[in-house]
Each structure stands twice: as structure tokens, then as C-alpha cells.
């Protein structure tokens, strides 16, 4: 082994003089022996620093970095010990002048260096420490004194952030809660270029995107998430010691240019951030809890549940959330004044009827609404810009600050206190004359009737939802349903906001072909619609939807239908939700037939981990009348 390292060194640094090599070789050998005796290569810290994970089937480990430069030994990706030896050897490299592209290995791998130095106590005479000026300047500029895990909540309209996202904010010593914008965000992300949502998901399932860690001012991230995508942000301030923070930053430095192929479900942003925390505090066991898929909110939960780690959670409402709050605080006359201001009536005239102490909030709301309408493309830019300045100028002439602070109520529970995203369901029911029992598993994520709290209302995302059923009088289990993706965005409109609701789902479903015979088809269904109301009371909705069924037992092997659907969603009590809906589909192409169905779904959540769901439905499919009833117990874990 040693000979290999020597050879490697000789290849790398041919100009190194022979006696120096001999002297440092001796010390290197000493260090390797020490490292071996302490089994450093098998330690948790080495494992965390090199991102080794146990192999799925075969014994041994594999490093997750997909960048040959991250592992110094030729077989370093799979051999922690060889990697440790090669790392030690690299530390003996002769001093170099740091440039934008070149660093000494002690600086390039500064977290490894520091940890090994802590354990092995390097003799500085025989292994001289390097100055690492670039790293020092970087660390001084960050001036880190705290770490904050940032969770922009899920954004259903962008597939790459459907499940939410996490990033890490480095808070500087000279900042406080009023100047958090100036912190830096460490973000693991990919650059999908122009690839659209669906292509992005497909490619990221197979790791086709190289992901890297990057740094940006936090205000850039706030603009992106809070202002442009309208996602409420949660900032979880974490309790880490200064030493742990330094360790994490050193490791972030090492990861700087390192590529980790991005996988949508498992090796994603949330997973990689957890691995940073494991380096900061090796006793934390975070990534090993996640096998197969990692949902950002689950990682927030897993961290928040660690004793003593969560200092406080700060809610940063999105631009829209604040705008809604501003408008909600105005009475009818004040809203009218807002409208008049936006119709370019001069501030003096528009505010005539408004009492002096209410003029400021009216101007502020008008400005916020104007910016929204401009962003929505409902106004000419030039006109909106002129009016924006006008409104602010008028506001600047009114005394007083925002002494009516627009702080929307902090949603409770927080995202980390919502239901876990995995769901197992056991149910029993009656379908067209037969009793049945079924078992369902949904790895992710949330549907409209799941326990409320912690999730965006009206945003349903089910992934890989599978149901098997056993029917009375039939021996075997059958696949009842396999939904690959099911996204449903129900967004109520009001006087100011006019979103379109939409849905799309695809997977294996069953259709009634003959009496007592339900056959499997591959179904894709989607639609667009409008919703009105509020989640506290009732949301009424109507859709136009289309369905394509494909299956060998259908006439012409397919059926294409279109038709309306409508319903009402009620939330009578915090733990009780109800959805009454009716749907009609006329299949004009392929296997021609009609389908109509009325259903009532109700859910009662017992707590954030358990819920009951009762479904009643009836209708007609290909001239076959049917009624079904189903009672299910849902366990979230």
C-alpha cells in the first residue's frame, strides 16, 4: 500500500527531492500506522466526510460523490482506508502558491485535514501546516455564528419543487433578526437548463443531472421563493456550537467543486443537507433513516425532532400571503380607495374619505396590489412603474412607519409538525354486491383529505399510491389501483386572485366492463377548472376533464372521454374534512360508453399519525349501476 502511495506522490510531484521524500515517507508511515491502530478509516467522522454509504447488497461501502477528484486514492470511492492513506500522503505535498484553480491538498480538503490533525496531532515540524489564504478569507467573509435550516414550502406548480426544498443559511455574527437577508445560503441544486417539468423529473430519476453546492446571498433566495414563487418560508434556527459550524463550513468548502449526481427521490437537496449536519456533529444519525426516498419536510422533521437542536422557527410569509393579509385588514370604503388609487385617481382625491390614520395602510395595500398585478401581466409596465413611484411618494409624505405591522398569523402546526408523508391504509368495504378488504401504501405525500396543518391547503400530490384488494368469493389478491402520479391543485379565486385549478393523474385503474367484472386499464386523466370560496368554510369547484383509458379488453383497445365534474369541499371542524363530488364522462372515441358517479368522502383525523376515512359512492358505468362503501384506517409514518 505504502509503495503505491509513494509511487503516486512521485508521479504527482516529480521535482520533490529524494531525501525529503525519505524523511516525510517515514513520518507518513508513522501516521498511517497510528490511523490504522485507531481504525480511523472505519470511524463515523471519516464516513461522513467522504460520504460513504453501506452498499445495498454486497458488503462494503461506496462514496456518493460522483467526482473522481473528490477521492484521492484510485479506489478511494470504495476503500475508506486507501483513501485515508492517500489523503495523509497528499498533505505532505510541497507548498504551492494558491491561485483561483489551485489549492494545497491541506486547504482543498480542509475538513479532512482538521479532523485528522485533531486525532493524530500532526507534528508541524515534519508536516508543516499550509496557510490556506483563500479559505481563511472566505471564512472571515462569512463570519458565521449560527446555522438556519430554511424550508420554502412546497410549490405545486413547479415539479422540481413540488415537495418543497431545503437550504442552509449561514448567519453572520453582525446580523440580527432584522438583517437576516444578508446571510448566505448554501444550496445543493442542479441546473436543468431549459428542460421542462416532466423531462426534469424523468431525467432526475436516473441521475442525469450533476448537482453541486453553491452559495448565494440569502436575499436572492428570498426573492426567488418568497416574491417570485409565492412560497411561505420557514426558517429553523439550529443550535450548533461554533466548532460544529466551523466543521460544516470547512466541509462545504471541500464540497465546493464536487459533483453529486442528483436523484429526484433519494439523493436530492434535502438528503445532501442532512449529510452536512452529520459532518458538523458526527453523533447525529440522519441520512441512514432515509432509504429509497427523501421528502424535504421529512428531513426537517427528523432534524427538529433531535433533542435540543431546534432553537426557534421563524415564519416568513410569502409576498402573496402578506398581500392577502393587507387586503383583509381593509374595510369596504378602504378597499374602494385602493381601487381608485389603482385607477390613477390622485392620492389626495382617492384618500379623501379615508381617516388620516388609515391612509398609510391603504397606500401600502394599493402598492402591494399594484406590484402583484404588474407581475401578473395585468398592467403595462411603464404605467405600473409610474404609478408605483407615485404611491410610494405619497406614502413617504405620511408620517409614521408601519405601525400596523402586516404580520399574517403564523400557521399552526408548522410544516415539521404536520403528518408524516408515508401512508399505509387498511380498509374494508362493499362494492357492487361484494365485500372486500384492501391494503394500500402511498410513499408520498399529501392529499386533500389528509390531516390538515403543515401543508399548503388545496395542494394534493400522491406518488406511487398502490392498492391491493381481496374480494369475497375470489381467492387471490388483485391489484386494484396503482397511481404513479396524482396532482390536484384546487385554488379558490377571490376578488383579487384568479388562479386556475388543475389536476392530472396517471396509473393503473379499474373499469366496469360487464356485470361483476372490473378490468384493469392504464388511465390518464386531467382537467382544468375554477374554484371559489375559502378553506375555512367551503370551497366549491367545477372542472372540465378528459380521460384516456388504454387496455386490451377495451373495444379498439382504448377509450377517450370528456366531461364535467363539480363538487364542494367542506371543513366543518379542524379534524373533520368532507368532499362531495359528481363527475360525468362521455367516451366518444374507442370503446364508446358513458360514466357518471357521485361520491362523498369524509376524513376524521385522530392525530397527525392516524385518521379514518369513509367513502360512499354510487353511479353508472356502461349501463351498470353500482354503489360502494369503504371505511379505511390511515396510518402516517
Amino acid at each position, binding site marked *: 500500500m505504502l509503495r503505491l502511495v509513494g509511487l503516486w506522490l512521485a508521479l504527482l510531484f516529480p521535482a520533490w527531492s529524494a531525501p525529503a521524500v525519505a524523511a516525510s515517507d517515514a513520518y507518513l508511515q508513522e501516521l498511517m500506522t497510528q490511523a490504522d491502530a485507531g481504525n480511523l478509516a472505519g470511524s463515523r467522522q471519516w464516513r461522513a466526510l467522504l460520504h460513504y454509504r453501506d452498499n445495498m447488497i454486497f458488503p462494503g461501502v461506496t462514496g456518493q460523490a460522483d467526482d473522481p477528484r473528490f477521492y484521492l486514492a484510485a479506489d478511494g470511492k470504495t476503500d475508506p482506508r486507501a483513501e485515508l492513506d492517500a489523503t495523509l500522503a497528499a498533505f505532505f505535498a510541497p507548498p504551492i502558491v494558491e491561485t483561483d484553480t489551485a489549492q494545497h491538498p491541506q486547504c482543498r480538503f480542509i475538513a479532512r485535514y482538521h479532523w485528522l490533525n485533531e486525532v493524530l496531532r500532526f507534528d508541524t515540524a515534519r508536516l508543516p501546516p499550509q496557510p490556506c489564504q483563500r479559505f481563511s478569507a472566505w471564512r472571515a467573509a462569512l463570519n458565521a455564528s449560527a446555522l438556519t435550516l430554511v424550508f420554502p414550502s412546497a410549490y405545486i406548480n413547479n415539479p422540481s419543487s413540488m415537495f418543497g426544498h431545503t437550504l442552509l443559511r449561514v448567519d453572520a455574527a453582525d446580523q440580527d433578526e432584522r438583517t437576516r437577508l*444578508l446571510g448566505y445560503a448554501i444550496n445543493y441544486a442542479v441546473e436543468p437548463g431549459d428542460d421542462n417539468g416532466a423531462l426534469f423529473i424523468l431525467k432526475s430519476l436516473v441521475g442525469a443531472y450533476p448537482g453541486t453546492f453553491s452559495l448565494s446571498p440569502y436575499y436572492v433566495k428570498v426573492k426567488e421563493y418568497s416574491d417570485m414563487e409565492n412560497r411561505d418560508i420557514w426558517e429553523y434556527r439550529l443550535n450548533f456550537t461554533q466548532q460544529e459550524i466551523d466543521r460544516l463550513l470547512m466541509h462545504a468548502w471541500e464540497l465546493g467543486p464536487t459533483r453529486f449526481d442528483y436523484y429526484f427521490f433519494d439523493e436530492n437537496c434535502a438528503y445532501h443537507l442532512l449529510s452536512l449536519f452529520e459532518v458538523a456533529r458526527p453523533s447525529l444519525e440522519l441520512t441512514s433513516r432515509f432509504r429509497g426516498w427523501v421528502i424535504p419536510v421529512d428531513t426537517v422533521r427528523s432534524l427538529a425532532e433531535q433533542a435540543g437542536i431546534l432553537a426557534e422557527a421563524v415564519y416568513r410569509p410569502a409576498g402573496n400571503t402578506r*398581500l392577502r393579509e393587507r387586503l383583509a385588514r381593509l374595510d369596504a370604503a378602504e378597499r374602494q380607495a385602493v381601487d381608485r388609487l389603482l385607477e390613477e385617481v390622485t392620492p389626495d382625491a382617492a384618500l379623501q374619505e379615508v381617516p388620516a390614520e388609515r391612509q398609510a395602510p391603504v397606500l401600502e395595500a394599493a402598492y402591494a396590489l399594484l406590484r402583484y398585478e404588474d407581475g401578473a401581466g395585468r398592467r403595462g409596465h411603464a404605467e405600473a412603474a409610474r404609478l408605483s413611484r407615485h404611491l410610494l411618494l405619497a406614502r*413617504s409624505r405620511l408620517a409614521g412607519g408601519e405601525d400596523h405591522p402586516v404580520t399574517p398569523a403564523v400557521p399552526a402546526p408548522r410544516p415539521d409538525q404536520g403528518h408524516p408523508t408515508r401512508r399505509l391504509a387498511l380498509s374494508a368495504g362493499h362494492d357492487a354486491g361484494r365485500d372486500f378488504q384492501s391494503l394500500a401504501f402511498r410513499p408520498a405525500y399529501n392529499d386533500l383529505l389528509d390531516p390538515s396543518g403543515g401543508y399548503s391547503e388545496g395542494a394534493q400530490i400522491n406518488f406511487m399510491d398502490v392498492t391491493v384488494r381481496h374480494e369475497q368469493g375470489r381467492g387471490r389478491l388483485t391489484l386494484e389501483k396503482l397511481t404513479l402520479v396524482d396532482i390536484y391543485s384546487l385554488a379558490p379565486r377571490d376578488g383579487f386572485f384568479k388562479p386556475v385549478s388543475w389536476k392530472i393523474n396517471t396509473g393503473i385503474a379499474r373499469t366496469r366492463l360487464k356485470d361483476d367484472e372490473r378490468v384493469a386499464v392504464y388511465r390518464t386523466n386531467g382537467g382544468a377548472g375554477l374554484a371559489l370560496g375559502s378553506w375555512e368554510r367551503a370551497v366549491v369547484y367545477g372542472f372540465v376533464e378528459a380521460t384516456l383509458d388504454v387496455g386490451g379488453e377495451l373495444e379498439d383497445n382504448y377509450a377517450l372521454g370528456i366531461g364535467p365534474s363539480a363538487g364542494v369541499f367542506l371543513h366543518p371542524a379542524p379534524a373533520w374534512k368532507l368532499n362531495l363530488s359528481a363527475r360525468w364522462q362521455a367516451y366518444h372515441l374507442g370503446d364508446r360508453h358513458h360514466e357518471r358517479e357521485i361520491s362523498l368522502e369524509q376524513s376524521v383525523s385522530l392525530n397527525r399519525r392516524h385518521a379514518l376515512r369513509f367513502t360512499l359512492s354510487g353511479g353508472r358505468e356502461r349501463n351498470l349501476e353500482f354503489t360502494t362503501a369503504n371505511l379505511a384506517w390511515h396510518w402516517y409514518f
Partner: protein
Amino acid sequence: MKNKLIIAALITLSPIGVAMAAPNNVGCGVGTIIFEGQTGVAPQVLAVTTNGTLGNQTFGITSGTLGCAEDGVVANPVKVSMFLDTNLDKLAYDMAVGQGETLESLANLIGVDSAHKAAFFAATKANFAEIISSEQANTQDVIAGLNRVLAQNGELAQYARLV
């Protein structure tokens, strides 16, 4: 030689250098016109892909000196202008109101002493028309306006050269 190069690079990056080298240094603090582009809250749109929209303000951690950043941290000479580039409309709002997170952050970036903060907020509110001199004002205009206002204010004159 290397030092001279660095100095040259910093001058090019500084607001003065940038103003001369404009207009293709977008992202370092010259590009944005207030109230223009995607400044306000956006509506709910299907499949917006914003990943990378603000890519010119996202930096590699050990990417060396690159544009506005050094190893991922915004270079000192462009700190204020880059902040303004991203936050002009929010800053204008805070100035008009006389307080707020964006204005607090600007005060921190300039290094306004906590004893002078109230005066700083009052001055930017009272001189809103001068600082946001037109609806076409860009980052450089706002910096120039802010400098003029600070320079004329006895207590705050010391901060004028820092913006």
C-alpha cells in the same frame, strides 16, 4: 504583478468601473431598473421554472474570483450595488414607510452605526423623491441619490462615500 491584476479586477468590479464598463455587467449592480421585470409577487402560473432565473447571483463555493464574487462570497466593492439590484422595489417601499427589513439590511451593509439608524431611516423617507428620482431609476441612480442625501446630512455625511 498578481496584486496589480487583483487591483485592476477590483476597480473593474467597483461601481465606478462598472458604470464605465456598463451595460453587460448585469448582476453586479448596474442592471436593474426599479419596478421593472419580475419585481413583484407573481401569480400562480403552471410549471414556472425559476431554477436558474437568478443564476447570475449564485456562485460556486471554491470558484475563485468570478464576476461579482470571490469563492462564492460577494466581493466588497459590489456588495451594496448587488443588494440593491435584487431589492430595489422593496427598498423603495421601506424608504417610503421609514422602516423595514430591506432598509435595515442596507444600513447594515453600509455600516450605519446603531446610534445613527433612526436618522438614516428618517433621511431616506424625507428624501424619497430625491433618491428614487424617477420610475426609470436604476441601481446606480439610487446609489447616487442616496449619496447626495447622506452627504448633505451632517450626522450621516460620514456614510456617503460608503454606498
